[in-house]
């Protein structure tokens, strides 16, 4: 499992997102965020080639 961000790093991330939570909820969220980081590692492993299929297709019909 990925390591949690440090409390300072996590506070910066929260501030960038514009999220203000009661202080007693922040520490729990920091540890839950580490689980999400683990999922992000799965998404990026192995790193997709640069020429991989575009994520979205755009249709002028819809």
């Amino acid at each position, binding site marked *: 499992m990925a390591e949690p961000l440090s409390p300072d790093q996590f506070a910066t*991330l*929260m501030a960038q*997102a*514009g*999220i*203000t*939570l*009661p202080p007693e*909820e922040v520490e*729990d*969220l920091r540890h*839950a*965020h580490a*689980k*999400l980081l683990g*999922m*992000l590692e*799965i*998404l*990026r492993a192995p790193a*997709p080639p640069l020429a*991989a*299929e575009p*994520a*979205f297709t755009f249709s002028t019909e*819809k």
Partner: protein
Amino acid sequence: MIPTIAEAAGLIAAKKLSPVDLMRECQARIAAKNGELHAFILETPERALADAKAAEARQMAGTLKGPLDGIPIGHKDIYSTAGIRTTAHSAQLLENVPTEDAVTVASWREAGVVLLGKLATHEFAFGGPSFDLPWPPARNPWDTERFTAGSSSGTGAAVAAGLILGGTGSDTGGSIRGPAALCGIAGIKPTYGLCPRTGILPLAQTLDHAGPMAWTSEDCAILLEAMAGYDPNDPGSADRPAPKLDVTQDLRGRRVGLIRHMHEQDAEVTPATLKGIEETAEILRKLGAKVVDVTLPSLQEFNAAGWVTLSAEAWAIHETWMRSRPLKYGEYLRARLALGGLLSAGDYIQAQRKRRELIARSFAAAADVDLLLTAAALGEAPRIREVPKWASLEKPNFTIAFNLLGWPALTICTGFGDGGLPVAAQIIGKPWQDGLVLAAGHQIELENGARGKRPA
């Protein structure tokens, strides 16, 4: 005895059952049980009486609209109901009274259903089980100390207890199939695009599915036929004719892929769940199907792409309120939404790239089968007070894979575990094979005996 929708429809058509009497039987059960189940968060007795009387008038006149005419139902409280409060079980929407029905609500109304009220949900279909909301969470009728799963928790509890004969659910990561599994009923997440979503409060638009929940797969087919169809106001809606769902279609010669790795390796189910899946496979063999093992991508890959997608899309829907009035959400939803706000644009794009890869790999893996079979849940319902806040991030679930794929997926009850609570299996089909999925569910239910037992 609580009839199924199919049974009640037959009795109503034969003038052997009054829709008003049927409604009153359900209301009597609500009066007796809802105090401990908390399945309904709003009852609509005047509307129910009007609906039932209208159905009875059509019954007497010989002008019944079809099998849903006079059938008591409830709607998950994220489905907009004209003139009836629709809250998403949240303090954010306590005063919300829509002026129009959701498209699916209107479709069922046109089919003649009797609306008994609005049903509990996890807050905005994502935050639960929560004890800090305007209403308590729904409880499992098999044991009221147990979890219903979510988010269509009220519908699961109400159907299992016979408070209604069927109801609406929504499914973004398993919110129909999870409660169906733990409450011992049937519930289908249809093919993405089959059921209109206009008027249903969204959670994550590329994963959200509307669908029915009922005691049997046959009843789900009746309900789904009445809510499927093209909706030009829903960009995800498919412009194709509403299907005729034949649950009696022959299963002989069909090929069923058993996704053994999902419930034996990627996640480990309880012995009772495993036994139910094996017995289901055996029933399918007896019905003439050929069961073979197939290997899909792992649950871990599906869950990673699924939860990142869901979290990011949910954040996008709720970010204004999350910044301006976060304390009006319950703690669980507030925390889960916040997690989505911490994702980057790159994270979301990577999830979509993975999603397309998973879709391609899944079509290739399932190329030679008509149906798939795996678990719907790990086992019996846990105690509601012991459900981890971050359970969905800690253990992969069996359901979000098919939200990512958009394939139809049905939960059926396969029996009961050591604790006397239901266990379940999940039957999955290719896109637009909802009828085949329901046919398999119906014919398995006829054989497995699990429909003969209701909660006490």
